[in-house]
């Protein structure tokens, strides 16, 4: 496999992991909204908390984490993007 192909394989892997996390916080939790709502977090019912703040915050964290991870992948294969190219 060429350098480019390896880079793309890793990029794809990173994309899949990111989307799996996205799927969990965006959908899986709310599929069970009814049953998790009896639990509480910070005094809020859990499902309410997750759609008011929890999942939103998780998305922000996932985005920063994923961007950093992808930068490392790019660096590893010598594809670091620079400004004004």
């Amino acid at each position, binding site marked *: 496999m060429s350098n*480019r192909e390896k*880079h*793309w394989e890793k*990029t794809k892997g*990173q*994309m899949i992991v*990111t*989307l799996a996390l*996205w799927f969990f*916080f*965006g*959908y899986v939790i*709310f*599929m*069970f*909204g*009814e049953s998790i*709502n009896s639990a*509480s977090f*910070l*005094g*809020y*019912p859990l*499902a*309410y908390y997750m*759609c*008011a*703040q929890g*999942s*939103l*915050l998780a*998305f*922000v964290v*996932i*985005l*920063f984490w*994923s*961007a950093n991870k*992808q*930068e490392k992948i*790019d660096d590893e294969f*010598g*594809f*670091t*993007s*620079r*400004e*004004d*190219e």
Partner: protein
Amino acid sequence: MFKGKFIDNLPKIYGTYTGGFLIFIILMAIAEQAGMEAKTIGIMFVAFTVAIYAFIGWLSRTVQVDAYYVAGRSVPTVFNGMATAADWMSGASFVAMAGGIYFGGYTYMAFLVGWTGGYILVSSLLAPYLRKFGCYTVPDFIGTRYGGNLARFCAVVVLTLASFTYVTAQINATGTIAARALGIPFELGVWVGLVSILLCSMLGGMRAVTWTQVAQYIVLITAYLIPIFWISNRGGYGFFPHLMLGEEVARLGELEAQFGLVKNAAADIKAAGVPGGLKSISLPHSGVPAGGMAAWKFISLALCMMVGTASLPHILMRYFTTPSVKAARKSVAWSLFFIFLLYSSAPMLATLSKLQLMDPTLPTGIIGKEISAVMAIDWVSAWTAQKQAFIADFNGDGILQLNEWFMRGDVVVLSTPEVAGLPYVISGLVAAGGMAAAMSTADGLVLAIANALSHDIYFKMIDPKADVRKRLIVARALLVVIGGFGAYIASMRITSILGAVAWAFDFAMSGLFFPLVLGVWWKRATRQGAIAGMITGLGAGTAYLIYVYPKFMGNPAWMGIDHLRFGIIGASVCLVVMVVVSLMTPEPDSATQKMVDELRVPSGKTILGKQH
């Protein structure tokens, strides 16, 4: 020389701006204490902020193509994040979101999840690759990746339909706020709103829109957060409401049980003469409705909004302005951070304002009190006179029950400072914030449409030899025409038949999501596949909308997919048709395949040249 200096000085410039704005708020507060009239304060707030945006728009004027279309690709990560957040959060987010939660509770909050989660799709599937491509507009990518004017044209059609559905609502919102704050008729307010929007964008295109959007973000977030913190601290609910309103949410549950959640019959509402668009609380605030269907409705709505987010051109094009691919990715993360600041506050505002009205032990509570006494409260009589609130004594006992109090959703944000007894300066600030939110989104949308028409239709199809001067004249003329058309539609007050803001997301996802994503992620995707996908996807989605929407054919929704979720049908059809047709047609030529390979590498030159 100036440009480099300008970019380096950004934190200082916007820091000074924020300080200036805070001083302005304090001066207004002092003026109010000194006896300045409420109306004058409202006018000052709107006029002062709009004048600043116009000034920024004038400073950012340009005669260069890449500055006009993509702000010279020099917008730093964090600032692009703020600009995107302002671009994203519309008048609807600012004014209507807390109102939606107020009435819809948990059920409505699917929008919060949907309107944030979409950024993960933007970041991992599209933004960095479109930035590497170096396009000026979204159809520019479709047109070049798949080749041919037909593909480009289809993308322009989807873009225009989705963005235009959205923009009339925004111009409508600027009109409403301008009319209220300046004390002029709505029809005139719409045109005042339009002029303000064009002042920001016309001379400098994307560059001007970027720098005004940053300024607008600062105003709108300040205007949203100050009242929430103020009310929370004054009422002793906790100094940091986001983490400390658990008891209040539980208290709302108790009050719901005490008063009973009653859904009024349509006939009763009609008989009592409740003005259109007003609602009463009939859904639990934090309770999750039972059953698999309710869970499916929640996640299907979130899905439509997420996929729609990743297909809306006015958002995607913001990431064309970053200096590098890496910066585009980071910038998506910052965008969502800035959006999060407002979105996570909306449920808190809804909780606090609901409690103010519902709790009979609070001096502000109105539910469970005598109707004659409630009607005598200043803000109640003012909003009732404007048909924004209404009391219908269904059971005739003279006591206001929960299901007898009707209000328009927008009023929640606009009236809360007044209801909670905050000084008028806060109401003026909120008006300025709502204006900033509606203007910034309208600017982004009008620019997205005008750029697609001027770059993709005029320059790429009609007159490829046009020089820079001519291209920019056409771009500006189109901006005025489209804005004018949007304002004209808004001034006719027919926006209610244009449907919900959610439709824009469904249109965009029906026609654009898979052609964009597969263009990057599937080399085998062909021109014929993309064209067939866009046409059938948009066609199927629109046909289903007509089939299911109560004001059109009004058929029962299939599997709970109602008019807010028709994108599920459109996007599925688009995906299937695009894959089948692509596999039936010969694979793309080697030049196209090489282009896709190049697209996936973050380093190196953009695929389209700096000037194209």
